[in-house]
């Protein structure tokens, strides 16, 4: 059952003051796809989900479920199931009753209700909890009951509103895998809302990165990670945050070089990085007289201990030991004006945990040959590539 959002908008009027929660959203979710709406708080992702559920009426635009327009249809009739961030379990009913109320309301025969409940309970590992009330259950158990309540209906679409955000880290990781497994097993179209980009990357077939009511980019997790459409997407997706270097382009002898420099004085270049030709020539040519931003992910830097020409000189500010990977937080020594970095005042480079680094140690940063560096126009923030 596909979900299509066409020109969807939602405006909240508060007297003279209006809030545009969702602006002209166009999204197509294929049947059986796991689609995530990803974005920071207040970007409109939950509002969009609630519009698909029917809990909010769009100000303009249409919603299609399986080809049929449902924009004005009441939530009860849409055959969608939602899992709320706070689970919204009925506190006066047992877990079993919570699971089965919707079936009872639709007059499903008692025998079938019991069977379906048994299957779902087993699938989620809550068979031993069915007689308990929500207050007697832990967060993870409640969440599974909420999931079960949605699954047991075999709806056409699942709507999940940040269902994992109330769980502690370990449980979140476990439930993430559970969700993925369930999705593979049930193959129900799923619309998932999250602000956790790591979660979205792991779970989704496709995602939409939203910001201020607008979908900045829609694509597969890979596309979004390696080919972000603009600086916002590049910064939002990927942990640790992407490094952004401010500079300009020079084209000589057919090769384009990105130069990191002090802005006022283009002559004084801090580093030169040849680009690997992802961008078409005409675009590069046009970009030569603008300020340009180069995005490099922490794992794309190559760290050198000896000075090398054309590489950026940095100094280790401190080290982050993150377990399997270590991160060196580096500051630019030569950047007195502090203008070379477009994002904060430090660079992050991933270093193998074998390398022994000390604070204050000078390092020279190169960019790996396989790195898929990203180029953005500084003014618009939009990507210059592809």
């Amino acid at each position, binding site marked *: 059952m596909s979900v299509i959002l066409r020109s969807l908008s939602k405006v909240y009027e508060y007297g003279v003051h209006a809030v545009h929660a969702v602006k002209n959203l166009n999204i197509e979710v294929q049947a059986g796809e796991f689609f995530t709406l990803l974005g920071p708080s207040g970007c409109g992702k939950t509002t969009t989900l609630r519009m698909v559920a029917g809990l909010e009426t769009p100000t303009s635009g249409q919603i299609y479920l399986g080809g049929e327009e449902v924009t004005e249809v009441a939530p*009860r009739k849409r055959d969608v199931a939602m899992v709320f961030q*706070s689970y919204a379990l*009925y506190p006066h009913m047992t877990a079993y009753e919570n699971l089965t109320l919707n079936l009872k309301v639709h007059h499903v025969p008692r025998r079938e209700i019991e069977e379906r409940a048994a299957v779902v309970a087993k699938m989620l590992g809550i068979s031993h909890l069915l007689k308990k009330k929500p207050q007697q259950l832990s967060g993870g158990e409640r969440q599974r009951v909420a999931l079960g309540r949605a699954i047991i209906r075999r709806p056409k679409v699942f709507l999940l509103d940040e269902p994992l955000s109330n769980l502690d880290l370990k449980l979140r990781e476990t439930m993430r895998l559970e969700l993925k497994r369930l999705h593979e097993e049930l193959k129900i179209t799923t619309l998932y809302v999250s602000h956790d980009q790591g979660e979205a990357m792991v779970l989704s077939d496709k995602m939409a990165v939203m910001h201020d009511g607008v979908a900045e980019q829609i694509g597969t997790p890979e596309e979004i990670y390696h080919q972000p459409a603009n600086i916002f997407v590049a910064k939002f997706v990927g942990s640790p945050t992407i490094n952004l270097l401010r500079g300009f382009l020079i084209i000589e002898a057919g090769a384009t070089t990105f130069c990191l420099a002090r802005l006022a004085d283009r002559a004084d270049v801090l580093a030169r990085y040849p680009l690997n030709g992802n961008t078409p020539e005409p675009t590069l040519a046009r970009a030569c007289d603008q300020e340009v931003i180069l995005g490099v992910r922490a794992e794309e830097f190559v760290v050198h201990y000896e000075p090398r020409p054309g590489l950026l000189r940095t100094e280790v500010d401190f080290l982050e030991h993150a377990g399997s990977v270590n991160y060196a937080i580096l500051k630019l020594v030569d950047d007195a004006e502090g203008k070379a970095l477009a994002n904060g005042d430090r660079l992050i480079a991933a270093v193998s945990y074998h390398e022994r680094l000390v604070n204050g140690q000078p390092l020279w940063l190169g960019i790996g040959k396989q790195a898929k560096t990203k180029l953005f126009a500084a003014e618009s923030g939009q990507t210059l590539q592809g």
Partner: protein
Amino acid sequence: MGQAIRLKLKRWPGNLLAIGLVALWLFPIFWAVLTSLKTRAQQDRLVPLFLFHPTLDNYNEIFTVSRYEVAIRNSLIISIASTFFVMVLAVCSGYVLGRVRLKHGRDIAMWILSLRMIPPVAVGVPFYLLFVRLGWIDKHLALIAVYTAVGVPFAVWLVQGFFIEIPRELDEAATLDGLTETETLWRVLIPVALPGISVAAIFTFIFTWNEYLLAYLLTTSRAKTVPLAVSENILEYHVEWGRIMASSMIVILPMLVIVFLLQRYIVRGLTLGAVK
């Protein structure tokens, strides 16, 4: 083991104080029980009498001489009926005012609450005149109508408060589960608000049971309620203490049983709003 005993001994001043206060509070009840079992002569003693030969004469008299059972029956009919009507109105109003977004919802709620500020005595005489015209004086209907009118504001305010506390997501989950609005009210909202509704019902019942002024104004003989019947034992030159105490005992007992059985719900209802 020794440590546990030591700790308990340490708290003995506090415990003693607690026991003292409880004793102080319970003493009137205790004294009432004793008095109900005394003859007139025993009651009138200057030096209070604690050890004596008990008698059930008082209990006997209130039923034979003054037909107490009629008063009890009247009070039951009136209190149960008014509480029922009040609760029906309060739950419906409380639901609408608490969860449905009405344009002037807050104003209406405020107005209903303001009715609570009317002292019953202010409406006593007008109601009397009205009921004389209707021929309702000394009929159950009069008090049921008046108690319903007087009891609704407080009950609505209480119930509305409880309905407001219920998170909207519960409604939303219910509607996605396929329940209509009425079904949601019946199957989800009312059960969840039940502690609050019970508190409102209990308060209303107690109010109607103990109410004296309006009962006095609007009844004469046949529809007498318990407070009136008990006060009739205060005669012109003399007070029948024994009978008063006996009447009270009879009425307290079921109340005690009910409150004892429902105390968990009462406490929960009273404190539910306090801690989130």
